[in-house]
């Protein structure tokens, strides 16, 4: 059982970090970013190039991934999303734009990096063993880094000026604007930050699970589920959703092991029932 819980916590840490970026963009712009998974993949490939092929230190690669994605996010916001949001009658229309961007990134990544699954050398070797528990050190390190990033993000949102501005924007965009918050600028910052988080977690995980050009879509969908469980547009919800989905997978797969084929069916139906009971997830803001 210790193993199952450790697996769940490890998965939860990475899921929470994935969900954070998605929920941030959603909270600030009401954009459901279908391209989140593709940004994750791009981050993974940047680390693959810099750390895997160019043999530079992992930290450098991670910074490169974060920087690349932040720039990409800013560009996307400035030249695509901002325009469409301004001109469309219903803000859901950005979903089509986001899907278009997702396909475009998919195609570009496939052309540039090829169709194969890629991986890099381990960042640390060795396995931690204690009683029944087996955890490779690199997983522990990655989970630790993920949690550190999450904590840093929360601290930034709580105590810095941009953080406060973005929280105000997420609560009420118009009110924030009236109070003198430059919402256009912070929309850009938020989008860049969200994309950066996606790239960061993609870059972290390439050391464990590798990366391939086709996984962007599935990652996005998984991130949607976490956000949905925890509640959309709320930082706490994304983190809770990530950990819950991680635990659900880990515990669910073990407990439902004897049911075999239907494990995932049960997990998904449970999710639907949960949402029917709590229509805004655990702690989300209502949105309709």
């Amino acid at each position: 059982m210790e193993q199952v819980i450790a697996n769940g916590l490890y998965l939860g840490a990475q899921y929470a970090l994935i969900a954070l970026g998605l929920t941030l963009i959603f909270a600030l712009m009401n954009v459901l970013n279908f391209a989140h998974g593709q940004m994750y993949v791009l981050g993974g490939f940047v680390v693959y190039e810099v750390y895997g092929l160019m043999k530079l230190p992992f930290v450098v690669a991670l910074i490169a991934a974060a920087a690349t994605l932040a720039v990409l996010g800013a560009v996307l916001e400035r030249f695509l999303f901002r325009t469409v949001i301004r001109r469309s009658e219903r803000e859901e229309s950005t979903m089509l734009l986001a899907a278009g961007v997702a396909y475009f990134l998919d195609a570009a990544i496939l052309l540039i990096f090829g169709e194969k699954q890629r991986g890099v050398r381990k960042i640390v070797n060795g396995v931690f063993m204690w009683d029944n528990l087996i955890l490779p050190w690199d997983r522990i390190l990655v989970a630790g880094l993920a949690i550190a990033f999450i904590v840093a993000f929360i601290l930034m949102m709580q105590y810095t000026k941009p953080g406060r501005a973005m929280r105000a924007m997420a609560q009420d965009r118009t009110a924030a604007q009236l109070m003198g918050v430059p919402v256009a600028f912070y929309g850009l910052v938020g989008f860049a930050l969200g994309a950066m988080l996606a790239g960061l977690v993609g870059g972290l995980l390439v050391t464990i699970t590798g990366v391939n050009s086709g996984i962007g879509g599935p990652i996005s969908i998984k991130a949607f589920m976490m956000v949905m469980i925890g509640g959309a547009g709320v930082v706490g919800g994304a983190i809770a959703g990530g950990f819950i989905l991680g635990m659900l997978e880990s515990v669910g797969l073990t407990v439902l092991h004897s049911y075999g084929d239907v494990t995932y069916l049960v997990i998904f139906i449970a999710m639907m029932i949960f949402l029917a009971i709590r229509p805004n997830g655990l702690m989300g803001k209502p949105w309709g």
Partner: protein
Amino acid sequence: MTNSRRAGSVAAVAVFLAAVFVAIPLAIAATGRTDLYYTLSSVALLAIASGGVWLTFYIGRINIGQGAWALVGGYASAVLVTTYGWSFWLSLPVAGLFCALMSMLVGLPILRLRGVYFSMVTLVLTEVARLTALALPITNGARGITSIPTPGAIRLFGVTLVPGFETFANRNAPFYFLSAAMMTLCFAGLWRLVHSRLGRLFAAMRQNEELASSMGVNVPLLRVVAYAISSFLGGIGGAIFVAIAQSIYPSSFTINDSVNFMLNCFLGGLGFVFGPMLGTLVLYFGWDLLFQTGQYQLLIYSGVMILLMLVLPNGLLSLRWPSRGRP
């Protein structure tokens, strides 16, 4: 409605019918591009399912779960035809009704959700449908249902109304006419619905459910009705598709399809009943037209999609109606 507008509408309908049932078949016969029959049948069927999604948009719900109902409808028809020996023609409406019934059961709890929560839960629903099809014995699990016979003849009092599809030299032609006719019927129905009292209630619900409720509208019932109609359309589209492919697998309609149905509505324009039809035509046909661009296909396709969104963020049909907005 003024007389001139009425005349305009009649003319538009006439042009549409002539294009679909006369001009396109003639053009195909002239050019010999019989492969277009299949592509256009697909467009028609996917447009029917997208039309359903559009209706859920109309009551203010973003539905990313239509793939589930297309799959359910496809399986319902396939099982009725292969296991119980029904005629395809009978199985088609039954498949649609089965979807409508099932969607009422599912819809009652999930339609309470709004916005992104409803979208997500319908997305999960697509996956639930796929996994259910994999798990159930009646759907033959992972091995799918194959070698489904083509639709037979319809005879009434000894008169053959529709000949069996196997008698045609090109099987795709009758499927095209069937799909196009169904599409015409479904969108005529949708148009009628939107302009009826019920349609106005739906629109009121999209604006503000609480307000509509306080004015005596039975919101939960109407939501379920709209969702049932939507799923009925999904089921019909799926069932005809299965008849063309003569096979169905749990992966015949997936999350990708659900997302595409939604995108078709966006692209066509949410404010227009016929938006899904145009959106499907452009999105599905566009991919086919680009097939000779080889490895750059997806890049060009998505690039065009982004450009269209930048130029026409309210959908293709918004091009000529900048201010009128509503259908």
